[in-house]
């Protein structure tokens, strides 16, 4: 053995002996550290702000923050009210809306309430300008009055399809809230209040459906989805792992210790997150499930080696030392590459991925440390019987598989190569979709309410702060004309349900000022007149309904809001591009700086942002993992070469996803580096066996391939099954991002096994294998694979 290996082996033996001799100290220290770090969990909070999905450097977020500082925060509750039958212009429904409007002012942090009832209806009466609530005393309105309200509401551009549907079936109350953002409980408490208000309204006005959406409900849904995941997914995950352990380890003690170990690793990961004051998003909350999946592998390798040694006649203590010795390097290398893959997530633009990466990396490192300290210490204390010698079954299958691969290597090489190339060619067909209502599974209330509300009202606001020639410029006739053209253009776009524009207010005021004559429903043609109309209008508006959220303070810009129906990211992009193109072509120079912004715009580009920021992350991961591979395989060239069979299955997985599913959310950006860190393990094991077969055992290439299959094949299958099950299990998450991440990673891991078994040998039998066998270096591949050798027996 090379000197360094001996040194590592010696260290491993010393460590194992120390751990067994001082097992109580080790167990006690483990418990102490676990409790100490896990105590950080008390600082954990659930994130309830969609902005947590964006780093502060995200340009779309910066634009939107600036927009909100100029106008108003867009946090809101949106109540959609639908009577069981008939239209909303009934005494009961309007009374409901009136009462809800008044009561909504009691919602904590509410700063504005808009509805049909408090809509400031303006009309002329001789030289008087009357400004009043559109609906007052709804209960006692006569049929004629109701018909009049209906007529006014359904022809008012500011109301139709925004607060009442054109067919009169649905009506809405919008409540703008502004949180001080001083406490994590603000959102859930406010949501609880609003829900209680809705329940009171439902009790008082039966025969109505009231659903709540809006940014506050979205923010709350992130929290509720995370909570549902934590309480429902993780217990089931333990059950799943229990079964897997029972099948592979076949020992009560081993199973118990492993479960303890992975539980400790995940609580330490979460405790560390608490100390770092991380606000947990559903994405970060998939970390425990991932830690459980990855941590189990370390324990399984060590326990299986130990059992095999005992079966071969070793006593328990010696078997433990041997298991630690032969697995030490393998477990370290695999943990290291996996941790690197997760740490690369720090390059992402989305903080939840930083959290997921760092929590998982902590858990992985802790699991590794425990597998060589706490695990042997516990096992040496707990009873464990030597299993009866058993006939080997797996090897014959693996042997024939090897034979098959060698025989058909040419077909496999070109066939799989072609499949790989075809799949990779399909990659560009992947379509990003980050429609945030669909982030949530239909079991989450918010998703149900959003789906309901979408049948009546638009869902995704797109904001434009339209720039005028300067201070007071919003009154400039030329500007108003352009603004009106822009508004008209937006209204012709597909999927636009409503456009809120100052021009509608100006036209109405102009008509009001001319005795409500329809012919005066035009824009004022005089700057001073417009400015004075605005002044008049501002003076007449009641508390909370001012124009501050529509016109900036020096009146140099006004806000236009286009509301889109529940459409995909791609369709949103079409809209945004069309709007930008219109501005570029038609807007005067002063207006050209107008850009679309909003939460929806942020989510529309979140996938691109993260994919582009993760390119650097993936390169860093590939380089770092490549270095580890060179160390593990003890050769620069083989290490570098090994990256080919690793990259191929991951890229093919993306291609397969493009063909099978088509769309993916921004979590796709995380898949590459995470799965790379995991799939390299298979290659390490297989390649090192192959090289050892050639160099130590003197096999030819076909023989070395057979040797690799027989020694490591079964363990790779077991490992892959555990990982695929664990990641695929994320598909049950209430949060679609986790499902995408889990399924894609599971697909990549499955592909990796297929490529390692069927393509890599074929590759080795061809040019590169020749090249490897001819590399006659003094150093030999290490014993990283001994674990697998033993495990496979």
């Amino acid at each position, binding site marked *: 053995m090379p000197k360094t290996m001996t040194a590592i082996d010696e260290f491993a033996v010393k460590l194992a002996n120390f751990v067994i001799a001082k097992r109580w100290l080790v167990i006690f220290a483990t418990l102490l550290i676990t409790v100490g770090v896990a105590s950080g969990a008390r600082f954990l909070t659930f994130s309830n702000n969609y902005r947590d999905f964006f780093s502060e450097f995200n340009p779309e977020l910066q634009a939107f923050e*600036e927009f*909100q*500082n*100029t106008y*108003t925060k867009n946090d809101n509750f949106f109540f959609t009210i639908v009577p069981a039958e008939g239209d909303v212009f009934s005494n009961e429904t309007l009374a409901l809306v009136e009462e809800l409007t008044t009561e909504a*002012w*009691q*919602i*904590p*942090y*509410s*700063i504005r309430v808009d509805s049909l009832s408090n809509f400031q209806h303006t009309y002329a*009466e001789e*030289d*008087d*300008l*009357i*400004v*009043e609530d559109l609906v007052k005393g709804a209960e006692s309105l006569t049929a004629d009055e109701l018909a009049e309200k209906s007529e006014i509401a359904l022809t008012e551009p500011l109301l139709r399809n925004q607060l009442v549907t054109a067919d009169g079936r649905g009506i809405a109350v919008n409540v703008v809230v*502004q949180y001080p953002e001083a406490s994590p409980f603000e959102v859930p408490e406010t949501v609880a209040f609003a829900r209680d208000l809705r329940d009171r309204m439902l009790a008082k006005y039966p025969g109505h459906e009231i659903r709540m959406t809006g940014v506050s409900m979205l923010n709350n849904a992130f929290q509720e989805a995370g909570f549902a995941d934590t309480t429902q997914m993780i217990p089931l995950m333990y059950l799943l792992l229990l079964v897997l352990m029972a099948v592979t380890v076949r020992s009560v003690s081993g199973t118990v210790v492993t479960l303890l170990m992975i539980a400790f690793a995940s609580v330490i990961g979460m405790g560390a997150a608490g100390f770092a004051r991380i606000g947990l998003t559903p994405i970060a909350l998939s970390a425990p499930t991932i830690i459980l999946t990855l941590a189990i592998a370390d324990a399984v390798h060590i326990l299986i080696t130990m059992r095999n040694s005992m079966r071969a006649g070793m006593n328990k203590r010696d078997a433990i030392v041997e298991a630690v010795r032969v697995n030490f390097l393998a477990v370290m290398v695999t943990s290291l590459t996996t941790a690197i893959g997760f740490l690369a997530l720090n390059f992402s633009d989305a903080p939840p991925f930083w959290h997921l990466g760092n929590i998982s990396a902590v858990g992985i490192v802790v699991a590794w440390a425990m597998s060589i300290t706490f695990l042997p210490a516990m096992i040496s204390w707990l009873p464990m019987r030597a299993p009866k010698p058993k006939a080997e079954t797996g090897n014959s299958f693996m042997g024939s598989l090897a034979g098959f691969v060698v025989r058909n290597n040419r077909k496999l090489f070109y066939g799989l190569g072609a499949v790989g190339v075809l799949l990779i060619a399909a990659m560009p067909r992947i379509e990003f979709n980050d429609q945030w209502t669909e982030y949530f599974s239909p079991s989450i209330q918010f998703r149900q309410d959003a789906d309901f509300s979408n049948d009546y009202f638009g869902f995704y606001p797109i904001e434009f702060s339209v720039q005028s020639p300067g*201070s*007071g410029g919003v*009154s400039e006739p030329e500007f108003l004309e352009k603004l009106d053209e822009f508004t008209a253009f937006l209204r012709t776009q597909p999927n636009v349900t409503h456009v809120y524009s100052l021009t509608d207010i100006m036209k109405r005021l102009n008509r009001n*000022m001319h005795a409500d004559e329809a012919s005066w429903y035009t824009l004022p043609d*005089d*700057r*001073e*007149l*417009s*400015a*004075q*109309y605005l*002044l*008049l209008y*501002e*003076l*007449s*508006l*009641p*508390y*909370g*309904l*001012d*124009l*501050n959220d529509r*016109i*900036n*303070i*020096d*009146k140099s810009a006004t806000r236009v809001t286009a509301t889109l129906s529940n459409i995909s990211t791609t369709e949103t992009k079409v809209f945004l591009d069309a709007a930008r193109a219109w501005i570029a072509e038609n807007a005067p120079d002063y207006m050209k700086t107008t850009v679309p912004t909003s939460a929806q715009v942020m989510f529309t580009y979140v996938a691109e942002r993260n994919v582009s920021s993760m390119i650097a992350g993936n390169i860093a991961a590939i380089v770092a993992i490549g270095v580890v591979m060179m160390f593990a395989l003890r050769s620069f060239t083989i290490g570098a070469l090994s990256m080919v069979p690793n990259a191929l299955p991951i890229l093919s997985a993306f291609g397969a996803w493009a063909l099978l599913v088509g769309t993916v959310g921004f979590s796709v950006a995380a898949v590459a580096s995470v799965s790379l860190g995991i799939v390299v393990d298979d290659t390490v094991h297989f390649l090192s066996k192959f090289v050892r077969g050639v160099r130590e055992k003197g096999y030819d290439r076909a023989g070395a391939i057979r040797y690799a299959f027989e020694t490591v094949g079964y363990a790779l299958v077991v490992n892959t099954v555990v990982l695929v099950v664990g990641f695929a299990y994320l598909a049950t998450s209430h949060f679609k991002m986790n499902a995408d991440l889990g399924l894609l990673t599971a697909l990549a891991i499955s592909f990796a096994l297929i490529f390692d078994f069927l393509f890599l040998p074929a590759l080795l039998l061809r040019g590169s294998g020749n090249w490897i066998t001819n590399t006659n270096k003094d150093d030999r591949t290490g014993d990283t694979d001994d674990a697998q050798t033993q495990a496979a027996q």
Partner: protein
Amino acid sequence: MMHRPKLRSKRLAAILAVVTLGYSLINPITWADDAEDKGYDIAARSDRTDTGFGDSEVTAVMTLTNAAGATSTREMYFKTLERENEQVGDKSLTVFVTPRDVQGTALLSHAKILEPDDQWLFLPALKRVKRISSANKSGPFVGSEFAFEDFTSTELNKYKYKYIGEETVDGMTMDVVERFPLYENSGYTRQVAYVDQDVYQVRKIEFYDRKDSLLKTLSLEDYREYDGIWRTHKLVMTNHQTNKSTTLSYGDYTFGTGLSDNDFDKGVLKRIR
């Protein structure tokens, strides 16, 4: 001989005092009445220092600041005619000087105590006077954080009062009085006014919104005396919910310029240049 009755009366007084005190302790209404009376008295005393000025003229600059820190100014002047009868409000005329687009736009207001004010607006570009019929009293004044009622003269009978206690602010001992709007359509549930005990001027007002959360704080600074009449020259209104603020700075007041009801008739609006 005189001892006994005296003693008896003393004892009687003591018993009465104990009974009264005990009663008032168990009966909060009595306390509330006391607090209301004292609150009203303090407000009335402050209000009296303001009465008897007859009429006034003053220029003002209003500076608006939004959450991003951007600012914008409007200049205007006010003419006010006092009406001594506490059951009716003062008459005021607000004329905008800048921004230039609204120069000459004039708002005439006949304040009422509990009903909506009578308001007329003259739009020079339209050359018409329009009466504004609006039930809204606490709506924002030209996009600022002030409602019109926040900076025009305070009418005593618009509120019900409650004395809260004393507090020292900026080295001054203040009486703290809560006041509850009696008129409809107010955006406020209550206001907390801080009145100094020295010259009885309101130094600070906290406004609580419909859900009784702190909405705005008005700080009244730079008080100056004009022959016994005190006037603040700087009002700063800070909105705690939106982080916007507005500063209203007054120039020097002129009193007794001989204004009369004729100067506050809607007919004069058109004659303002």
